[in-house]
């Protein structure tokens, strides 16, 4: 069951590879949030307790509700960003790159699974999520897209944490979640400031600091 969800996760990634619209990115992000929620919920069915519910709920709240709304309202609407992600890299090649990366990750995950005790599919899914999040940051120009890429990456990390059955006390997880939230919040404010001071919403404005 979990594996199915993980595969779904990977599919969302491939969708990220194909689409060129920010709204789509946002939606994908929401989907991923929900997926995470489900993945976290699943093992709790047999041993149910309200205490352990907090974290999944929080994730759902933050990743699927708060942040998307924040981004939509605060950024998309306030400064009407053009709807397309500006890439300086052929979409097709990007997709190829993603696929290639996923393949490598899966293969190497299998190899690792031989030596160490990890279940490869969640691991691979999580890791490819992380890397593709990085790709989004590296190959896109819009700042808001960078933020989404960062969030995708964070999703990947959460997935990783789940997949390797982390013993991370959930208190820590909560605070880290908050941390990320605040970080994203700050980033959003920064983007606002940038687009108001530089009159652009992509990376081109930020080349003052150089030696």
């Amino acid at each position, binding site marked *: 069951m979990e594996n199915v969800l993980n595969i779904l996760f990977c599919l969302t990634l491939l969708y990220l590879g194909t689409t060129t619209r920010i709204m789509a990115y946002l939606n994908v992000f929401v989907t991923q949030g929900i997926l995470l929620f489900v993945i976290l919920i699943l093992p709790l069915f047999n041993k149910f307790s309200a205490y352990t519910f907090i974290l999944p709920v929080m994730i759902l709240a933050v990743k699927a509700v708060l942040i998307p709304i924040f981004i939509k309202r605060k950024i998309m609407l306030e400064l009407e960003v053009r709807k397309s992600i500006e890439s300086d890299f052929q979409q097709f090649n990007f997709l190829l790159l993603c696929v290639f990366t996923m393949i490598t990750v899966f293969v190497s995950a299998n190899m690792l699974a031989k030596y160490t005790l990890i279940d490869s599919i969640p691991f691979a899914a999580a890791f490819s999520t992380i890397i593709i999040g990085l790709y989004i*940051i590296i190959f896109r120009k819009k700042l808001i897209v*960078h933020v989404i890429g960062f969030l995708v990456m964070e999703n990947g990390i959460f997935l990783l944490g789940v997949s390797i059955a982390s013993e991370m006390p959930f208190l820590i997880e909560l605070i880290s979640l908050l941390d990320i939230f605040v970080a994203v919040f700050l980033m959003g404010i920064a983007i606002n400031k940038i687009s108001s001071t530089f009159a652009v919403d992509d990376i081109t404005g930020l080349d*003052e600091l150089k030696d």
Partner: protein
Amino acid sequence: MIVNIFFIGIIIQMAFAIIPLFIKNQKTCSAVSHFGAMAGIIISFSATSAMLLFKPPALVDIYSHAYWGMFNFRFDSLSLFFMILIQLLSIPVLIYSYAYQKPYIATGKSIKLSVSSFILLIASLQLLVVANHAVLFLIFWELMALLSYLNMIFEHEKPEVQKGSFIYFIATHAATFFLFAFFLILHSVTGSYNFSDYHIISDGSALYYTLFVLGFIGFAIKAGFMPFHFWLPRAHPIAPTYLSAYLSGVIIKLGIYGIFRVFEFLNPTDPFLGWAVLVISMFSTIFGVWYALAQRDIKTLLAYSSIENIGIIGIGLGVGLLGLASANQSVIILGFGGALFHTFNHAIFKTQLFIGAGIIYQHTHTRDIERMGGIIHSAKWLALLFLVGSVAISGIPPLNGFVSEFIIYNSFFKTAGNFGNYYPFFMLLMTVGLALAGGLAVAAFTKVNSIMFLGTPREEQKKLFNISKAEYISIGIPALMCVIIGIFPQTVISFIINILQGMPLVASYGRDYSMIARIFPDLMPLTKIFISLFLFAPVIYMLKKFICHGKTRISKAWGCGYQHLTPRMQYTASSYADELNAIPAHILLIKKEATVIEHIFPAKAGFSSSTGDYAEDKIVRPVYERIISFINGVNFLSRNDVRIYIAFILGTIVLYLALAFIWKY
């Protein structure tokens, strides 16, 4: 007990370096600090000389550092020698620096930094030569560089000052890195930081020669051996003159001190090393003085002549090494003794010459000797005192310069006589080389004296010469020393024999005073001859005065029929030196620009010539610029895009993972 007195003296000096900073009035501040420091130096000097007489407790522990072990000082004879040198010369230099600061105070320039750092410099030098702990030594070594740099930027508004002090700073820092390597390797070999534990016996291993090269180069940069001298002619002209006097008189001598230490640690017994040192030194001697001859900036000229004299000292060192190589006592003693003696003498007359140059600079506001002339008419005694120094530095009797060169010549003869086979031939070449250098030195210093002092002023002087008492004292003391040592060298010789007795290099070959004394040539005849010279010449002079009394007349100089001789028509320094400089012109990098006079009614014509420095212009600078241009060529990092940085994270991780993958544990 004596040691305590010494340290009290040092503390007094430091106190007078720091305390006057809180005096508001600069005049009193400078006076207090200078004379207080002088008092401190006199105290420590008396302590030092007392130690020289009754051999003191060798080691003085300060405190035990958590990581470097016991910091301690050792008063062995070599350090006492250089200590005496430092203290003896600090007195006139301090007097002069007091006189030097006066006009600047009048202009309201703040002099506190340079005064206090200069006095601290003197104090730290005295501690440097007794430091027995490698780290302590390095500390004071760097302090020396640092404090002299702080003095050098006294007139930091001038671009050439910025340039020269920069080169000095770089060179001295590079030298320090050599010494880092040297001492750390020594430590890893011997497992100790104390100089007294360093007794490497020469094995043919590469490490041994590495050590020798590291130590020698590290100290040779400071001493100014060619081709490591490039900082010297840049730093001296721009430093305030009291500092250039101190640099040339004392600080570069500490390079010699270091080289002595290197020999002491490594006990080199390979004649090849001796020959190498001899070749480098001879090279420095001849080309140092030849460069000096080519200069027209008085302080640069003196700087190059320092290189020459360092070369002469190095020749003595090389001969001593040859002696060590074949365990021949007399050669060792003559070589090292000659080196020490010339170190002493050069310190004296170079200080004097620099002070003289400084006095002239302050009155004429130029260092270019082509613009001077006829100074003897306005400042007779200054000219004569400067003349004494020039005669001494040219190694001409009856002054001290001659005596030390005399001993070095003797060391050649002794070497040739004791070793036979191919030695006489090479020693003859050495002798001839030294004679050549002597001739060139005569040419250079006749040039300096005649162009600066004699004839008539080439440009009207801006202000009259009114030389203060302090200035006369500061230049007079060394002049007097030159004459006295020249006539009675035995005093210094016995002092040096005392030093040699204590040096481990020599001591292993017998520490008997009279035996060592017998090795030195008998200098009594020289004393007699010089005394009679000094008596006889005035008699003749008086006789002449008496005979031509009333039969003298003043008249115009013979212009070969031309009636209107102007000062500009006088012979220039460049043309004086031209015939000699033409010989190694491509090494001196002499450039001449002239506009040829053509028609009957010629246009305005002009001529200009300049000299470079081979080591700097052809070796150091190109390499430096090559490296800098390489550094500036690397620009794959200077992309200012956050995405690139993130790509860097990914790339680094992948790289490390690959490394981890191939890593076998």
